[in-house]
């Protein structure tokens, strides 16, 4: 992973992704950061990656697309974002929309420094 921010449009998308990551909305006040902003947290027994840190972002970003055993389907990173927003009680994220691209940029850049490791198998 070597995602540059050398072009101003790259930097702009990264900063928009960061904005989106911390955007609280909906009836539950949830943002991406609510669940993915701290180390060592979990929902029920499911470990949550801290996507603001290098290690968490690397682990999460580099393992999509993934085969989800519980769903019997191959899922994309776009789908992962879509499903997070569903659980955040947001309206439906449009695939390939600017918000999805911005968040992808934000997380990809945060994951710099390790080898891309997809496709993976997840629960």
């Amino acid at each position, binding site marked *: 992973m070597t995602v540059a921010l050398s*072009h*101003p449009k790259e*930097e*702009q998308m990264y*900063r*928009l992704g*960061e*904005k*989106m990551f*911390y*955007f*609280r*909305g*909906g*009836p*539950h*006040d*949830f*943002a991406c*950061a*609510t*669940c993915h*902003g*701290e180390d*060592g*947290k*979990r*929902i*029920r*027994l*499911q470990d*949550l990656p801290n996507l*603001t840190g290098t290690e968490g972002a690397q682990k999460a970003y580099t393992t999509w697309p993934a085969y989800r055993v519980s769903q019997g389907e191959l899922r994309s990173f776009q789908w992962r974002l879509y499903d997070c*927003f*569903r*659980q955040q*009680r*947001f*309206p*439906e*994220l*449009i695939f390939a*929309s*600017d*918000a*999805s691209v*911005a968040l992808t940029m934000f997380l990809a850049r945060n994951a710099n420094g390790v080898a891309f490791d997809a496709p993976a198998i997840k629960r």
Partner: protein
Amino acid sequence: MNGRESLVSLALLSITLGCATAPSSEEIAANAAAMLKSSFKANGQASLDRLNQDETQSLCSQLAGKPPSKEVAARIEKINRDAIKYPADGKLLGDWKNGEKIAQEGRGKQFSDDPAGPVGANCYACHQLAPQELSFGTIGPSLYQFGKLRGYGADTQRYAYGKIYNSEAYAACSNMPRFGHSGILNEQQLKDVTALLMDPQSPVNK
């Protein structure tokens, strides 16, 4: 390089930089609003107005994960505390058994949920409560023995109900939803969850 040449170079340099300067915070904010508008579509009960932030959501988003200043925290806690509505009958404790069901229920308000179906609080997603339930999350603190440790008095009852009703009244930019304020739970459900924490017979206090 003479004086005139360096002026020309400077002008050229600033033109180049002008096209390639990093966006200002104002530009990012304007672009973020446009991005939100174009990136989501309404689906069932999850309409687009869910993207319109109230003051609390907006202030907390701007912090980008950092804790609020004393002044901002005081402002958020005041507007939220002023908005708490306590039950007209003065009773804050309902049925802890029903409260346990609400604490276990994760459905409600997602576009994939039946709008006529159950709406829970999903407390166990983030908190330990009754010790029999081993599958609990850790985003929030353990609430095991909530009442036993604090006492079962009227003030603690009022705090527990208020905290569930509107968490931002007590901890600005808390991760916890405002279950009463935002219309997630109804009054009876709020009483039932309060009882789960505050009834001496509740397994939480065993």
